[in-house]
């Protein structure tokens, strides 16, 4: 017996994927040429699976700010936020987010994963209930495991199913409803208005994870809650810097009067080093850039709609009927076709995400594309063209159109 034996099933599943040369889960980017182009295995490749929605990774102001921060503060803080790891620029970033979200309080975490993990685990006490959407991100599930609360899971995006469960929770118990604005695998948006209204009807506190909607949803780019005009029903909003903001890190914003106490009880906030100065500086610059990026947002949505329409009319089995987000995903019948499709697409010069269980809901296999505001219309057309060529080469049957 060996402790590692328990992973044999995972190893066997991975070994059964029929890729020839490139392991979909071990891809190496040799060079990064721009927000949308990288060199992989010596080939120039259109990056269509980076979550770099707003194309901020090469934003000039953000890059200059990061370089200046290294000169001024060095490469890292080597300390926790509650010890020596809070610099003036960390407070400045929190103030920038308070201004962006028009909230009283903000906490910046070292990753988005830790932000949700920290909030959910800290808030869910012994006699409390946490009610989550079935398709919530792993960080939310992990936060639930780490909490001491009773965890109730409702069917994805199903308001009626959620309400039925809220009714069963004993009266007087503290309840936290956790949903995402946009779900990262299928790219489907939550019916946030209805959900938050029902949550409030049952006296729940609400936490909305806007990781995949911040930057491009809503007039100011705050997320789905802003777009639907229900920000007043979201008690806590959690987000990340690793997508639209183009770097790494996470945050939570709230108007709850006692919010700041979380700095003393939230373990993923306390027991890790704070973000390095360069990251803090680029995040601050990128968020400021995002708030005046109306044109970029418009182009991102044009890209998403163009790609969705192109793949749909080519006969791909789309995960959503319309482009609900910059995530455009297509169903593939099984791991075999999925893997061959992914590898052939890479050979054609397009990198997309192969998504497989358990990262996907209901055991489905997906080819997941996330578009970037910096993709040109030509690049979007190339992606569509190469999807079609790939389908032909791996004999994926497309729907008659």
């Amino acid at each position: 017996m060996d402790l590692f034996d328990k992973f044999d099933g995972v190893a066997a599943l991975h070994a059964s994927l029929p890729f020839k040369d490139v392991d979909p889960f071990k891809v190496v980017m040799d060079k990064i040429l721009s927000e949308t182009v990288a060199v992989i295995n010596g080939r120039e490749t259109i990056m269509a699976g980076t979550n770099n929605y707003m194309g901020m990774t090469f934003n000039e102001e953000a890059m200059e700010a990061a370089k200046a921060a290294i000169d001024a503060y060095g490469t890292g803080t080597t300390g926790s936020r509650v010890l020596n790891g809070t610099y003036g620029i960390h407070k400045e970033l929190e103030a920038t987010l308070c201004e962006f979200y028009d909230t009283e309080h903000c906490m910046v975490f070292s990753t988005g994963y830790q932000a949700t993990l920290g909030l959910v685990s800290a808030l869910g006490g012994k006699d409390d209930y946490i009610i989550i959407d079935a398709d919530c991100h792993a960080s939310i599930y992990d936060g639930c495991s780490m909490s001491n609360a009773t965890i109730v899971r409702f069917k994805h995006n199903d308001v009626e199913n959620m309400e039925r469960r809220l009714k069963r929770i004993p009266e007087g118990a503290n309840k936290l409803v956790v949903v995402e604005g946009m779900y990262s695998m299928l790219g489907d948006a939550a019916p946030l208005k209805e959900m938050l209204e029902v949550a409030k009807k049952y006296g729940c506190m609400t936490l909305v994870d806007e990781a995949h909607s911040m930057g491009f949803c809503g007039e100011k780019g705050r997320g789905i809650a802003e777009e639907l005009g229900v920000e007043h029903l979201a008690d806590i909003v959690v987000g990340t810097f690793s997508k639209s903001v183009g770097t790494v890190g996470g945050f939570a914003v709230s108007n709850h009067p006692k919010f700041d106490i979380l700095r003393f009880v939230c373990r993923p906030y306390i027991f890790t080093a704070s973000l390095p100065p360069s990251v803090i500086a680029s995040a601050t610059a990128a968020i400021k850039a995002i708030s005046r990026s109306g044109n970029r947002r418009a182009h991102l949505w044009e890209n998403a709609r163009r790609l969705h329409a192109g793949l749909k009319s080519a006969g791909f089995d789309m995960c959503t009927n319309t482009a609900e987000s910059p995530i455009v995903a297509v169903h593939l019948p099984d791991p075999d076709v999925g893997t061959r499709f992914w590898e052939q697409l890479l050979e054609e010069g397009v990198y997309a995400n192969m998504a497989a269980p358990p990262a996907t809901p209901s055991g489905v296999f997906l080819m997941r594309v996330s578009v970037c505001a910096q993709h040109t219309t030509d690049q979007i057309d190339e992606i569509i063209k190469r999807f079609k060529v790939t389908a032909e080469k791996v004999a994926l049957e497309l729907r008659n159109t």
Partner: protein
Amino acid sequence: MADAKILEKISAIITPINRKGVALTGATSFAVDLEFDSLTVMDMVADIEDEFDIILPLNLLPDLETIQHLVDAVEKILSES
């Protein structure tokens, strides 16, 4: 509610997803016999919650390895409510 009645209702929920056609008894295990992954188990639990109008918290799942474990858990929750 008696064990037998609960078992019957739970079996009815499992039958449509019992792709291998395994005989369903109290000793049938979800992971080994039925080869359910964690997602399938969670979805099954949601159906059971609605059938009995109870909350079966996710926290309980690691302890529910067999159909009998599930029957016992449902019975306990029903008797406490």
